[in-house]
């Protein structure tokens, strides 16, 4: 049973190799066959594997599939092996399912592209890497996937390599991820030194024997791993690559930079929950970074003009929520939000892609408006997803976001809850701002773009409709309040139950029905206020907004320019490093000091030889003199020195 897990992982790789090697000579249908065929089949097998998993009794829901020994050096042995349990199962379905939908969408979105095959080659390679990350049964395999998705992200952001902005953004994403990987790598080493293995099950089973709760090692391991998560999941201070990543084609933003890859950090923290639970300090760090990112990114989202940038900052902000949940020990809630977020954010990105496609590439919302009547399918799916992210009942985001907020409150972190609630209000505001600016009001579309304005083809709208449907009802997997109805919790919960742990407080917090209902009321209230404000500001009285912009121009400028964080990094880190390398290391140390010495030695010998040369003057009397001096030296040595 389950020995076909490796096939699920490998299929997209086959698709990638086929399209990569022969795609140039294939027709589009041929590329579709390999790319969609392999991912579709992978999705199908994933569903079968998942059903097999669900049918098992709760205590036996772990399927391991070892393929071969990958690296064995001394007592280190790393297998290429795959693991399916409820946690990886959820991600498996998201990755293959949403991935497949986005593949379908891309056949429409990329249809005019000149290197269609290359796009699908990268996309398949991404699916493969992401599955490695999620399905691997040890940290090193996760790391392979981890760096692999980083590579694919690099390749796909820089897909239009001839544009400098795209190429630069790709490189930035890779390097910032590498900073995170640096932490991941060291965390992995520390795990190996502590446990003698990188295998999940051995590590987790021995955690309580080898580590002390709150001990330095447990804290160090988890903090290092979290550095990796911060890079991959775009948290403060390594978030700046994600907004830039919007240079990539929109399906890529949907798949990689919203639904799957960026949630890898959350997966890693959830996967390592045993270790995180033993390190309260790390948990606090995770929660605070998460909350800070949630609100910080939300404020930047307020004034962005580019529709994809709005969504990008919203993604950073939502990822912050997920980490906040992890940080208070509400892993199920985090995983739940990953899932609902995958639905509504993928839908939003694809929707924005549909708009951009219709607008002949225009991304500036100030040049949109009134698109509702031109592209109804896109509009309605976008609206549903926006309601979901804003947290309106009964859409998916309501349930997952609320669970996070409730668990945060229940764990006693009132301040964090407050931050989360305010960020939710801001989210509702800027998301509806985007809806209003894009689809409602008077049209500001340029005449040239107006001519081509059209609803997207079915191949693009169908995935939108499916995702919007999931965004609408997906929340019911985690119904709160009624005992036993939280299917997701019953399914995922056991993964995070590790006997005798100082467990995350939130999972054990008592269920206070009134508190929960009250909090729900508060958050819906906040969301409604946010939406209403957006309505007033952008539909009812846009003139007031203009005035406000002018009044608070400096603040607006600072936020619009993302608090100048990129510029700050550039001045503080990039420029000094390059300057030091160029002038101090290369010019001064290498060329002047070291080469100076070497050439000095060379010159010394030249001088020496020219001096020695004088002895070989060819004149007999010189030689005679030398001989006499030598003899004199010898004699004196024997007389006085040779005692």
């Amino acid at each position, binding site marked *: 049973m389950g020995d076909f897990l490796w096939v699920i992982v490998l299929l997209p790789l086959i698709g990638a190799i086929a399209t990569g090697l022969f795609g140039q000579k294939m027709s589009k249908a041929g590329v579709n066959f390999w790319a969609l065929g392999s991912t579709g089949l992978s999705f199908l097998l994933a569903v079968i594997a998942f059903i097999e998993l669900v049918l098992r009794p709760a205590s036996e829901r772990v399927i391991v599939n070892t393929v071969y020994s990958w690296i064995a050096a*001394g007592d280190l042995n790393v297998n290429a092996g795959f693991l399916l349990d409820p946690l990886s199962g959820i991600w498996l379905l998201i990755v293959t399912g949403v991935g497949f939908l986005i593949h379908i969408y891309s056949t429409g979105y990329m249809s005019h592209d000149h290197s269609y095959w290359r796009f699908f080659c990268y996309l398949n390679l991404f699916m493969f890497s992401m599955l490695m990350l999620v399905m691997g049964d040890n940290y090193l395999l996760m790391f392979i996937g981890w760096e692999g998705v980083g590579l694919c992200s690099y390749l796909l952001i*820089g897909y239009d390599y001839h544009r*400098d902005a795209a190429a630069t953004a790709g490189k930035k994403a890779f390097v910032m991820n590498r*900073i995170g990987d*640096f932490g991941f790598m060291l965390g992995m080493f*520390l795990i190996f030194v502590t446990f003698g293995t990188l295998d999940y099950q051995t590590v987790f089973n021995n955690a309580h024997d080898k580590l002390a709760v709150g001990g330095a090692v447990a804290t160090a391991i988890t903090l290092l791993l979290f550095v990796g998560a911060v890079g991959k999941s775009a948290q403060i201070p390594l978030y700046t690559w994600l907004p830039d990543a919007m240079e990539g084609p929109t399906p890529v933003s949907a798949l990689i930079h919203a639904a799957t890859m960026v949630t890898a950090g959350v997966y890693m923290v959830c996967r390592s929950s045993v270790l995180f639970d033993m390190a309260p300090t790390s948990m606090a760090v995770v929660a605070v970074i998460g909350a800070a990112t949630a609100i910080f990114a939300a404020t930047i989202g307020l004034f962005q003009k580019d529709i994809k940038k709005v969504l990008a900052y919203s993604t950073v902000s939502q990822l912050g929520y997920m980490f906040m949940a992890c940080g208070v020990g509400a892993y199920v809630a985090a995983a739940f939000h990953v899932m609902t977020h995958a639905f509504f954010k993928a839908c939003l990105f694809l929707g924005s892609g549909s708009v951009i496609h219709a607008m002949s590439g225009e991304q500036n919302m100030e040049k949109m408006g009134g698109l509702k009547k031109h592209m109804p399918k896109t509009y309605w799916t976008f609206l549903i997803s926006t309601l979901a992210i804003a947290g309106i009942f009964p859409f998916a985001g309501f349930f997952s976001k609320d669970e996070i907020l409730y668990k945060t409150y229940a764990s006693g972190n009132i301040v964090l809850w407050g931050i989360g609630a305010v960020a939710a209000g801001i989210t509702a505001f800027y998301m509806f701002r985007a809806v209003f600016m894009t689809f409602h009001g008077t049209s500001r579309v340029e005449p040239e773009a107006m001519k081509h304005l059209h609803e997207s083809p079915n191949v693009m709208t169908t995935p939108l409709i499916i995702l919007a449907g999931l965004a609408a009802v997906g929340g019911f997997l985690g119904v709160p309040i009624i005992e036993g109805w939280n299917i997701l919790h019953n399914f995922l919960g056991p993964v995070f139950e590790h006997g005798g742990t100082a467990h995350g407080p939130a999972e054990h917090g008592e269920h206070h029905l009134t508190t929960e209902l009250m909090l729900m009321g508060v958050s819906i209230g906040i969301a409604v206020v946010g939406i209403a404000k957006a309505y007033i500001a952008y539909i009812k009285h846009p003139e007031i907004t203009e005035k406000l912009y002018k009044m608070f121009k400096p603040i607006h400028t600072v936020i619009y320019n993302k608090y100048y964080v990129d510029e700050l990094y550039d001045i503080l880190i990039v420029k000094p490093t390059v300057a030091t390398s160029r002038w101090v290391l*290369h010019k001064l140390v290498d060329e002047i000091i070291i080469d100076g010495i070497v050439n000095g030695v060379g010159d010394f010998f030249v001088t020496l030889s020219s001096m020695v040369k004088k002895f070989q003057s060819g004149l007999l009397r010189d030689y005679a003199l030398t001989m006499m001096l030598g003899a004199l030296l010898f004699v004196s040595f024997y007389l006085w020195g040779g005692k």
Partner: protein
Amino acid sequence: MSIPWLSIVTFVPLVGAAVILMVDRDNKSLINGITFATGVIDFILSVPLFFMFREGTADMQFVERFDWVKSIGIEYHMGIDGISLFMVLLTTFICMICYLSTWTAITENVKEFNILMLVLQTAMIGVFCSLDFILFFVFWELMLIPMYILIGVWGGKRKIYATVKFFLYTMAGSVLMLLAIIVLYIENHAQTGIYTFDILKYHGMSLTHVAQFWMFLAFFVAFAIKVPVWPFHTWLPDAHVEAPTAGSVILAGILLKMGTYGFLRFAIPIFPEAAQSAAWWICGIAIIGIIYGALVAMVQEDVKKLVAYSSVSHLGFVVLGTFVFTLRGIEGAIMQMINHGISTGALFLLVGILYERRGTREISEFGGLTKVMPRFAVVFMIVTLSSIALPMTNGFVGEFLILLGVFEANVWYAVLASTGIILGAVYMLWMFQRVMFGEITNEKNKNLPDLTKREMTYLAPLVFFIFLLGVYPNPVIKKMEASVEHLLIKIDKSGQNAYVRGSKVVNPVPETKGGGD
């Protein structure tokens, strides 16, 4: 072992050189053909070494031993263990590829060039196989001479400066090494009454601390120059920039490994105590080399110089992995020696391909090449990724094992060294972007031809091994394991048990002296 495999593999290139001597110098294609055929034959002959090599033993295999100059104990003594095996294979592999790459790059004095290359190959293989100091030294010097000439004759504008610099550096190393060998020889005779240059005999020698220290230092400097370890590295960028492509490939792919190989074969096993007491500062300069090499690589304007400085950084990893004396550190170091040969060899070939087309290597002269050279772009990207140690490529396995081994010995070394993986991504991807991405702004690049069939042919095996060693490195690791463990035991004999870490075979519990039965 009746067939003298090692001698055959060593001297086949020399035979090829002799054949070329008889060919008319204007028949360039025949000369090139003979050289390439020799390379292929030698590579094919060397492959059985891998499969016939017995795992699980640290003994020298394929040993050949005859008296050479009996009166003073010089022997013709060849043999390989799990460390040198891979150096021999790397040499035959890289040389074969090099020979195919020069057909259009070298158009003058083809005959001399090919002869020198073949002589060089014999010398390099000889270095890795020699188990007698004098034999080793003969091959060592034989290897340097063709290299001087290759740079000095077929080099670029500042070839004479580069040659002199290379000569000065390496000569200083050779002299130091020769002095130390003679001292060892005399010392060994004083202790045992036997005149011998048998390297393995020296491994167990007891020497005073002071003697160990000075001789270790002499060996260390000799090999450190070769590696090159910071701050002995400044000959490398100049030599690379001036050397013809094939010279650079050989230089980076194989010659640099002579230094790290020298540490493993001579400096460490002969002077284990000195090596241990020097380990801290050697690790220190290795780490400086990793970071320094990467930072300086970042600001280079010339692609070839950038790759040269990246070698300083990569070899820093190898030296660090070696001198932490852990199983995984050293295994990773050997893996990385192989990987660096493949990846950096490939990088130099790719830079050479650009140079052949444009006559320049200035990064600013390029940009947007992906559009006109898509196949080149793919290969270049794969090699770049291997160089920055992306998982599933060979580079990752080596770097991972090194860093893990380093971490096991000293956490802070590992933290500092790991910054190299970030910087590696910075300088390689930045260079790649400036050369390959963006719009084509330079008119001269508009019509550059993509890879030819010949170029694809010699790049393909490199790409193949990049993936093979990344996905399935175990056969290689297994073959070297016993030899590495053996080396660690030797170090351990000198009393610091803590060093032998991560090994299955070696019992980590110290021997109890005078215990029951």
